[in-house]
């Protein structure tokens, strides 16, 4: 399959680099579907009963594992395929991601048709999850190489697509299920087949478009700074060596704590808004609130990552943590004031910084460890996401329940949680503050550095 090899996709010197972000978005908009997988949960509890769940139908708790398995395999595949990806280039990686993600849907369709849940765990969870992980990191290094002048903005555009994928997937899935629904079928099988084909084709288009820059290529008019900023290295740190530096673990905690604070709130946003504004926010309005937060999450990925090109990654994260602390501390007051607009604004900014944290981290890694192994290092760092996916919701849910069990009113049950989130952000602030350039002994010697 030589057409997939890195050597076959080296762009001519006059290639327009603005073709590369849409290629990355083709992949990220598809795999962002993962955030919208819950639209299948209720229909899949009625595959046999059709109108109401039958005793043989799957339970919601069993179905919840599909998404969890997918996220676990996202983290694992990103961590373990990073080095392979850096070697084979983005086209082969995107093709592999398309096969896994599209194929995962097709296998899951078999699972739904035969009513075998383990096939769906294997299809969407394991194989689709690998597609998520490979697809997520596949365009990162390529974008940084094409945009050495604005790496934050470039990776922010792609990772914005992951946040935006759910906006497309949710209404599309609902429409497809309605289209395929019959008196004897809820339409999930056919929807999975259709989505598998659509996503495979869309991701394949991204793989066809993507190119890597020729060695020595630079954007017109771009001259690398003679004296790089203090936290921006022009050296290379090997992925295995990066894991021996304190900087990797500081960044791991920076990402983990930033994500923990955001993900816990995102998961509970609907219930939280209704309980903090009893009588003011209805369930329908709460669903709108969740959608609005997702928009802030998506927009923040592009906005903050782009800003980081001008103010630096460390300063960007300093803003995330300091502003986050202030906003989390302010949220209980907005509820006491009864101001829905202020409440939405506070959470909107918090969620924009949650997304911004994801989108700015690849450029931060490039600044600290160099561009050569950024894909592989990014993959390893994404384990922080998996950990935060457990910490965040557990923290919010358990503390809320503990408060309610202790006799605190539901409207006030989130106050302590907000202060704990602010505390977590303060620890993240300290980790970010401790970031320093990597010690020279970890740098790869010039003769050992592979060509880009």
């Amino acid at each position: 399959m030589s057409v997939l090899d890195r050597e076959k996709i080296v762009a001519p010197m006059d290639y327009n680099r603005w073709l590369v972000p849409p290629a990355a978005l083709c992949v990220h908009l598809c795999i962002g579907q993962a955030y919208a997988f819950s639209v299948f949960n209720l229909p899949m509890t009625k595959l046999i009963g059709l109108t109401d769940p039958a005793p043989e139908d799957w339970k919601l708790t069993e179905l919840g594992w599909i998404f969890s398995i997918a996220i676990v395999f996202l983290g694992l595949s990103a961590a373990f395929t990073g080095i392979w990806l850096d070697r084979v280039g983005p086209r082969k990686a995107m093709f592999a991601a398309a096969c896994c993600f599209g194929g995962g849907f097709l296998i899951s369709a078999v699972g739904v048709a035969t009513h075998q849940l383990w096939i769906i765990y294997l299809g969407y969870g394991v194989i689709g999850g690998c597609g998520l992980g490979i697809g997520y990191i596949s365009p990162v290094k390529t974008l940084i190489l094409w945009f050495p002048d604005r790496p934050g903005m470039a990776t922010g555009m792609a990772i914005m697509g992951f946040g935006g994928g759910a906006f497309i997937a949710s209404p599309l899935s609902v429409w497809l299920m309605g289209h395929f629904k019959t008196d004897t079928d809820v339409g999930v099988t056919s929807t999975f087949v259709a989505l598998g084909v659509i996503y495979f084709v869309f991701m394949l288009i991204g793989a066809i478009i993507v190119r890597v820059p020729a060695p020595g290529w630079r954007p017109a008019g771009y001259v690398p700074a003679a004296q790089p900023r203090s936290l921006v290295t022009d050296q290379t740190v090997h992925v295995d060596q990066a894991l021996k530096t304190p900087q990797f673990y500081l960044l791991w905690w920076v990402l983990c704590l930033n994500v923990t604070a955001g993900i816990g709130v995102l998961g509970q946003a609907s219930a939280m808004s209704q309980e903090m504004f009893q009588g003011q926010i209805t369930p329908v309005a709460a669903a709108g609130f969740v959608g609005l937060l997702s928009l802030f999450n998506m927009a923040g990925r592009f906005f903050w990552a782009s800003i980081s090109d001008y103010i630096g990654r460390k300063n960007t994260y300093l803003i995330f943590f300091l502003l986050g602390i202030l906003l989390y501390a302010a949220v209980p007051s907005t509820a006491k004031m009864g101001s829905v607009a202020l409440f939405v604004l506070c959470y909107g900014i918090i969620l924009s910084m949650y997304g911004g944290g994801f989108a700015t981290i690849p450029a931060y890694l490039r600044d600290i460890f160099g561009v050569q192994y950024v894909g592989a290092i990014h993959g390893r760092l994404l384990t922080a996401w998996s950990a935060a996916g457990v910490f965040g919701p557990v923290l919010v849910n358990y503390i809320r329940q503990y408060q309610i069990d202790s006799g605190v009113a539901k409207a006030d049950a989130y106050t302590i949680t907000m202060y704990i989130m602010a505390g977590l952000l303060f620890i993240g602030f300290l980790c970010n503050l401790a970031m320093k350039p990597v010690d020279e002994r970890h740098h790869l010697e010039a003769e050992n550095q592979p060509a880009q």
Partner: protein
Amino acid sequence: MNGVRKDYTTQVVLAWLLVGIPLLWGVYKTLLNAWQLFQ
């Protein structure tokens, strides 16, 4: 001898439309739902 520079403008516009249209459609649908919050 210099080769002829290829113009990629059409491909760039088409590629951005390919990803931009579905994304804007999704954002529009989300904003419609979010409007309920302020009614």
